[in-house]
């Protein structure tokens, strides 16, 4: 990836993140390399939430008083800015609790389609139909589809993963066939860093009339993403992985699909007309936002998107690319360390997972923690992927705009320290 823009001024940017200046474990400087799990938040996001709560807080989309008006405006303005950030229309953005809920919304809505009438027939699944996922999915984009298959009698199938950590697309034409109703896959693996070929999977799905669902949790925060350009039908991502609050996520759905997709959660706000005998439903996105929604969280995510925009997604991607290159070469230089995922930088993002011979990931993580370095250890909610690659668990360092090359050096030195501590150096 190349960019002509000036590199990030990381030192200036770090000053926006209060937590990055704290110390941990007896005075060690925090080296936060776990943004793939959750990112830290800049003061601008925290301030936006606080200002909203101090000045404008009210239940949105109900009430006619001034605060209700201001809160609704702030909420809908956040939706519009987030939509713009991902290249879609405001009414194609549904706020959810998180990405997991977004995927469950689609899976449950499809499960409801069989009894929802003819308008929803294209979403209905049954015995003989197939759902296709991949072996590198996060559990959030795996278990809901397993469950949907169980509820409907459909069959779950999946793409395997090559030893290098890429999708094995050799059987794409048999796997995605006329029985396929949904193809759900991750844009960027949260473990391997692999960026998947969205265009070729979307065209394979479109050839057979299958819907596509993209897990964009690890892509939208890290590089420019335009869902209309990608051509996916649905996509999800989480606020807390992109400098925003937890408790807010986004489901994108193509307008014509959201207009006919049956509801998932029902109740207040999502209705058009309610009688004792039955109800009709509001148009999207309200149809999928039952109850009083998370409001300050949406405002916070709007502020996070504003922040990312000002910094520039191309520059963030270029910065993470440099960090990833340094981490891959630094770790490759240590004997006994094996990278889980692509060793090169082609179609690869800033999640770097690895195993150390003779040092269990949990123990390696403990040594790193004692040095102030926060990494993720375990299977990172991708247990089948670890099984497929023949490792029970791994250590993952994941980078974001506020990380530095010095922090990558600290990671590499910390891994050597772990080897020394456990006597395998």
């Amino acid at each position: 990836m190349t960019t002509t823009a000036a590199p990030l001024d990381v030192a200036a940017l770090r000053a926006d993140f209060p937590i990055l200046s704290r110390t941990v474990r007896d005075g060690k400087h925090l080296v936060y390399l776990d943004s793939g799990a959750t990112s830290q938040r800049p003061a601008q996001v925290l301030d936006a939430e606080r200002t909203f709560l101090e000045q404008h807080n009210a239940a949105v989309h109900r009430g006619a008083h001034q605060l209700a008006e201001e809160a609704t405006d702030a909420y809908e303005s956040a939706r519009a800015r987030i939509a713009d950030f991902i290249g879609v229309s405001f009414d194609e953005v549904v706020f959810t609790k998180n990405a997991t809920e977004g995927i469950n919304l689609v899976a449950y809505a499809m499960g409801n389609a069989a009894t929802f009438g003819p308008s929803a027939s294209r979403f209905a699944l049954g015995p003989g139909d197939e759902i296709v996922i991949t072996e590198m999915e996060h559990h959030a984009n795996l278990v809901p589809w397993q469950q949907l298959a169980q509820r409907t009698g459909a069959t779950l199938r999946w793409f395997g993963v090559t030893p290098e950590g890429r999708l094995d697309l050799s059987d794409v034409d048999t796997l995605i066939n006329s029985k396929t109703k949904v193809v759900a896959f991750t844009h960027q693996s949260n473990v391997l860093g692999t960026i998947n070929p969205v265009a070729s999977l979307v065209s394979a799905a479109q050839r057979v009339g299958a819907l596509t669902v993209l897990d964009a949790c690890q892509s939208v925060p890290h590089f420019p993403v335009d869902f209309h350009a990608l051509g996916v039908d649905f996509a999800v991502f989480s606020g807390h992985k992109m400098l925003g609050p937890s408790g807010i996520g986004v489901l994108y759905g193509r307008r014509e699909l959201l207009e006919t997709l049956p509801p998932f959660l029902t109740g207040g706000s999502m209705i058009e007309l309610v009688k004792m005998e039955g109800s009709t439903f509001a148009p999207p996105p309200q149809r999928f936002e039952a109850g009083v929604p998370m409001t300050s969280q949406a405002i916070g995510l709007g502020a996070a998107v504003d922040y990312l925009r000002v910094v520039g997604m191309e520059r963030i991607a270029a910065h993470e690319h440099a960090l990833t290159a340094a981490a891959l070469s630094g770790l490759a230089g240590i004997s006994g360390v094996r990278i889980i995922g692509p060793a090169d930088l082609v179609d690869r993002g800033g999640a770097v997972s690895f195993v150390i011979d003779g040092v269990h990931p949990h123990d390696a993580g403990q040594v790193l923690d004692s040095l102030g370095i926060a990494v993720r250890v375990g299977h990172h909610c991708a247990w089948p992927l670890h099984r497929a690659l023949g490792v029970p668990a791994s250590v993952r360092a994941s980078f974001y705009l506020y990380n530095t090359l010095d922090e990558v050096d600290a990671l590499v030195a910390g891994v050597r320290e772990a080897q020394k501590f456990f006597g395998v150096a």
Partner: protein
Amino acid sequence: MQLQQMYQEIILDHYKNPHGRGLRAPFDAESFQVNPTCGDEVTLRVHVVDGVVEDVSYEGQGCSISQASTSVLTDLVVGKPVDEAFAKMDAFVELMQGRGQIEPDEDVLEDGIAFAGVAKYPARVKCALLGWMAFKDAVSRSAA
């Protein structure tokens, strides 16, 4: 150094040279336990004769804490009456859940006292208890 406090030499010794490892027969019950947050797992068998733990054998994969703790377990319970073994288990569980505030009794827990430092790390307590949960489960099945 915090790290040395947690990884006592005794723990590292048991990790590198585990006692009683391997699955053996005869056995009366087997338990498979997994830590869903990290994927560590243990399969543990017990052989109980006349209320006495005759043998504990196990296979597993996991971090030094989970593996060493299971190795210590076999030292503590093999040859003991079930109620004494359970008393040791209760003492170990109490130690692990004590957030580092409990003074362990070496007469009861022997090498198990080395895990006192682990109790200060809540994320690792489950590791230390994995084998013990398998032991508890297997013994209760063997009595069924």
